């Protein structure tokens, strides 16, 4: 085994990456989001998507939904590292429960005329996207769904005059009667 001269063992493992969606319940206090983001940047974890909002204002609880990728060992680390933060109540791996709904909202601006405009409208209907703003030469569509559905819609809009996109990131919740 040859590695460059170093005080560290430098061979990395190459287990395949997985994508997981984590729901994290936190105390809504100053700096809590910075802590969570700092954990990811400090330890070199990936953030594919992150959303946060207060969900129980009386108890000052916020819910952070994080989509991340990593090897199974790294995903486990991420969950443990999150869980041991003082303001974190609970971490649930929505991907492992296999019973979660994941939704994202995107707003997609398309500019065009004539056939392109008609085609954009037609596709929007197929995707159940709503028009939330319109001018003579443009639309803003609002679309909700899974990340891949929104990706697909954006790809279809590209040749039809896509101008810009704004997305919320993924929010997730478990199916059935019980909460986290």
């Amino acid at each position, binding site marked *: *085994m*040859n*590695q*460059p*001269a*170093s*005080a*560290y*063992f*430098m*061979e990395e*493992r190459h287990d395949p990456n997985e994508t997981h969606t984590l729901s994290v319940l*936190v*105390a809504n206090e*100053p*700096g809590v989001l*910075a*802590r969570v983001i*700092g954990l990811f940047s*400090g330890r070199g974890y990936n953030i594919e998507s992150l959303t946060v909002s207060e969900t129980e204002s009386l108890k000052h609880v916020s819910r952070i939904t994080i989509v991340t990728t990593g090897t199974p*060992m790294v995903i*486990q*680390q991420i969950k*443990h*590292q999150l*869980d*041991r*933060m*003082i*303001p*974190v*109540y609970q971490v649930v791996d929505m991907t492992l429960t296999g019973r979660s709904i994941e939704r994202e909202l995107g707003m997609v601006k398309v500019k065009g005329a004539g056939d392109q405009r008609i085609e954009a409208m037609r596709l929007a209907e197929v995707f159940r996207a709503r028009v939330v703003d319109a001018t003579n030469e443009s639309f803003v569509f609002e679309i909700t769904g899974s990340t891949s559905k929104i990706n697909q819609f954006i790809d279809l809009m590209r040749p039809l005059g896509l101008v810009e996109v704004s997305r919320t990131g993924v929010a997730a919740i478990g199916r059935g009667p019980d909460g986290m």
Partner: protein
Amino acid sequence: MSDDKSHDPNQMTGAAMIVRALADHGVKHIFGYPGGAVLPIYDEIFQQSEVEHILVRHEQGAGHAAEGYARSTGKPGVVLVTSGPGATNMVTPLTDALMDSIPLVCITGQVPTHLIGNDAFQECDTVGITRPCTKHNWLVRDVNDLAKVLHEAFYVATTGRPGPVVVDVPKDVQFATGTYHPPRKTDVHVSYKPRVKGDAAQIRKAVALMAAAKRPVIYTGGGVINSGNEASKLLRELVEVTGFPITSTLMGLGAYPASGKNWLGMLGMHGTYEANMAMHDCDVMLCIGARFDDRITGRTDAFSPGSKKIHIDIDPSSINKNIRVDVPIIGDAGNIIGDLLHVFKAEAKKPKIDPWWFEIGRWRARNSLAYKKNNDVILPQFAIQRLFEATRGHDTYITTEVGQHQMWAAQFFGFEEPHRWMTSGGLGTMGYGLPAALGVQVAHRDSLVIDIAGDASVQMTMQEMSCAVQHELPIKIFILNNQYMGMVRQWQQLLHGNRLSHSYTEAMPDFVKLAEAYGAVGLQALKPDDLDGALQEMIKVKKPVLFDCRVAALENCFPMIPSGKAHNEMLLPAEANDDATAAAFAGGKALV
């Protein structure tokens, strides 16, 4: 309306609350350095006598002193520093304490609330800067939150996996008057729930593995020390009851006595041959309060390939971080060792492992710590051995700096009890040992406190000699002076073609004169024959001492697991000739 309030003894300023909270948490000593943003607190300190303040010469010194204090007592170390540079100077000790799980409570002053974010004089984003190097931190904006936050800070620092916390208090909050309350249960974050008790089913599984083991080994770390004296006691009993061999990390030395018959010595990069071979060849590994760090495992894909691994740790994030384990048990080390013992005694018998001990005996016979005697120059290993002999029968505490001397101290000084060994393990902070010794001496006024130092490291926090003299703390700084950053030089010899780039310390100070300049005592040993007499002198003097022990300049630290190698590929001193070393360091350039 303020009429009744003015008679309420719990009405006080933020500054007074801080001192009051310290007293309520049984704090007898704090380490600190004043400045504009903490003057109200210093004013309160001046007017009371419950809490003694130790004035350091640099905030980093306060942090390491508090670490030494904490590690030698099991109580939290407390630091008080000003805003801006005072806080940034604390970053190194906070990180050090986080890596080694040392409970610290650091109170920092902050500019007044209305100036935060204004680039005010001596403002810095203390909670932002210290977020990644604390277990938790708080900025207190309202004096009525201060008591709760202070109590919570002590709780978080000392429970679960211990660690450093920072409470940042703006100056206006220190001046403001509010309501104080003594510590109470509801002061704690509802989301913080450290686990103490281990899962019973997992403990049964562990006992079943242990009872069937043919080649077991116990590998312990700093977690056993942190768990308290009871954990070390139970560990000794567990070793007795099972008959298992035991090794430990650098941080865990002293939990099991070095004179114990099952002791294999320290493991890891500079651990003994028998400890590392036992780790490699074992069939059951019981890891308690250690974290499979990269100095321990060597190459992870060849780490102890044939063993079932039981891992006891209070921090779930330590489990399966580097090495996949078979039976994880989350909880407090002492608590779980107690449960293991209980179940083992009830359900298992001491397994017959004579052949395993026979094999270990063969590894021991390689004598991996051997070194060639020398009558002309003091060898560093010899110096530590003589120091160990000289301190026998004394109530001794050892701290170290970082480098070769640290490894030789770990190899050659025998620790019989926990809390006697303070070293910077995770962060490897040069400059740790001298201020840490100060902190230890503050907690143990009549004990013999020795910093085993390197000539380069000790210059990083040398200014604290002035603190030692002021507070009459008779610490002994035993410098293994090889005129080199020895550990850097060793790596340059082994890995960088002997190009000794900036690892030689030119213009070395005259340590004896330096000691005298501080008002301390300077001693020197140049030859092996000088050593014992000078050591006696050092122990006898009731003042701080700088001991300049001139040792062989080019001695290297062995045995050693070269990087990228497995435990069974150790380089032993007898074999560490140029060719073998070159071969062992595949990828390294030609050697001396």
